[in-house]
């Protein structure tokens, strides 16, 4: 399975790089966008030393992680972005006549050019502003693996709604955008209902907030929360997608 996925995503990456000008513009645009965001936070911390216990290092870690999560997801699993539309257009028919699993094939259908820009900025952010040392590398890698897995799994779960509702094309994208938005702000700003949402429907809590806490103070308890939530979201996404696929193959048409 892995060699086939690697070959498939290699083709998707080549496709995303075909138009060099577009690739450079997209990536550079994303770098500028990220720099602008960083400047805002830098100015903020010039005036206030902390926001709800979160300092510049914590915010740099949060931004670095989410940028790298978006980068890894976009480059290597970019098919998540248009998965709902792909399902609604019936494009999985061709994949169903082939012998490999459908979900990996859908994820490897596309690689997103702008994600390279996020990757460059994420690495720069973690190295320059996050106050990390090389000994933190294993912990950072762990948070990236788990964060990316939850991010992609959530996007798959949103897209799987396309098996039930035609409106999933837009709301899957909206939910993914909201998940990214929730993952771009310090955890201390969430309370009450927004906190519940950040740890459930839009799992910023497990993608970045708990991982940042883990980097600040590594513990077996926090690690268990991250690992368990990763398993839960993967299981939920796989279950939803397969339930939807069964529905699709039974000819149950999504409603408007």
């Amino acid at each position, binding site marked *: 399975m892995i*060699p*086939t996925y690697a*070959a*498939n995503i290699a*083709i998707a990456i*080549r*496709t995303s790089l*075909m138009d060099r000008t577009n690739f450079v513009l997209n990536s550079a645009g994303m770098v500028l966008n990220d720099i602008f965001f960083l400047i805002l936070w830098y100015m903020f911390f010039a005036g206030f030393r902390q926001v709800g216990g979160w300092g510049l290092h914590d915010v740099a870690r949060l931004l670095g992680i989410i940028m790298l999560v978006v980068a890894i997801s976009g480059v290597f699993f970019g098919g998540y972005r248009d998965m709902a539309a792909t399902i609604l257009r*019936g*494009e999985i*028919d*061709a994949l*169903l*006549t*082939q*012998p*490999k699993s459908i979900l990996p094939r859908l994820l490897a259908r596309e690689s997103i050019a702008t994600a390279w820009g996020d990757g460059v900025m994420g690495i720069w952010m973690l190295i320059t502003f996050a106050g990390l040392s090389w000994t933190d590398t294993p912990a950072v890698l762990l948070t990236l693996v788990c964060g990316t897995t939850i991010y992609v799994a959530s996007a798959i779960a949103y897209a799987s709604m396309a098996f039930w509702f035609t409106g999933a094309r837009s709301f899957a994208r909206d939910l993914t955008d909201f998940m990214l938005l929730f993952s771009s702000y310090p955890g201390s700003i969430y309370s009450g209902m927004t906190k519940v949402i950040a740890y459930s429907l839009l799992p910023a809590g497990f993608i970045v907030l708990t991982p940042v806490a883990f980097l600040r103070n590594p513990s077996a308890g926090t690690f268990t929360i991250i690992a368990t939530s990763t398993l839960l979201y993967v299981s939920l996404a796989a279950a939803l997608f397969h339930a939807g696929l069964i529905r699709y*193959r*039974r*000819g*149950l*048409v*999504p*409603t*408007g």
Partner: protein
Amino acid sequence: MAILSVESLRKDYRYVRRRPGLSGLFDRDIRTVKAVTGISFEIAERERVAIIGPNGAGKSTTLKMLSGILEPTDGAAAVLGFVPWKQRRQLAYRIGVVFGQRTQLWTELPARDSFALLRRIYDVDQATFDRRLNQLVERFGLGPILDQPVQRLSLGQRMRCEIVASLLHGPSLLFLDEPTIGLDITAKAAIRDFIREHAGAEGQTVVLTSHDTRDIELVCDRVIVINEGRIVVDQPTDQLRRQFLGHRLVTLRSAAPEIALDLPGVTRRTSEPHLSVFEVDTRATRVDAVVEAALAKGGIEDITIEDPPMEEVVRAIYDANRAR
């Protein structure tokens, strides 16, 4: 020996129609569309069979069930010894599928790259893949276009690449859903020749759906006509050709208000000033003889030769069948 057998296969599509307004959230109207209503047939090894019918007749749904995409509502089927919807992956290694309106190629990249990926998807070893690809490239004349991005190819060239893509893993059964749709006459002819010759040489069984009566006449040796989800006719193409397929429509635009043709098997269908449509029974008179006779009259400005629409052919078959 039958390699494909279908018994009382039925497929219903269910969808929910919401009522307008807020009440629609709670008040749902479940509708059922009967796409295939209990069909049975068998296909032997090396047979080339066309499944034809008007839009919405159930052709594509049947093909989707037989290739493992859809589960039937009821009935049984065995394809190469597999139950398609239960053993989809095992079956996939043995069948090739082409959807005329969908692509399995990466359009921004050369077809060669998509072929290389398909080698991995179907677990074909490199030596076998190279041998098959060389054979197919030679037989299909793909050499000059193999390294061009697919999106720069003509529709006909793209379709040839699609068919090659479906053959690289050496399937013994080929499902073709509208393989000539949207192609020009030359491209259609090339696709038909290739399917017929390749399937003949490799001993492949072909199941084809089409709207084009020429696909059926030139590629298939048996025709199954489906209408409203039921089999209307299942007979050899020769037999069907004698009854229904040997007709052409010749449309003449002329300077004179009307053109009269007095030839055997040629009947006027409709006419308006300066436009005459004739139905030609090609068993009685060849189309070129009709064109020659029309040109001899002088003042012909435009000539169009068409097959009768599939809907018309199916209706004729259906009526003839009911009259028996």
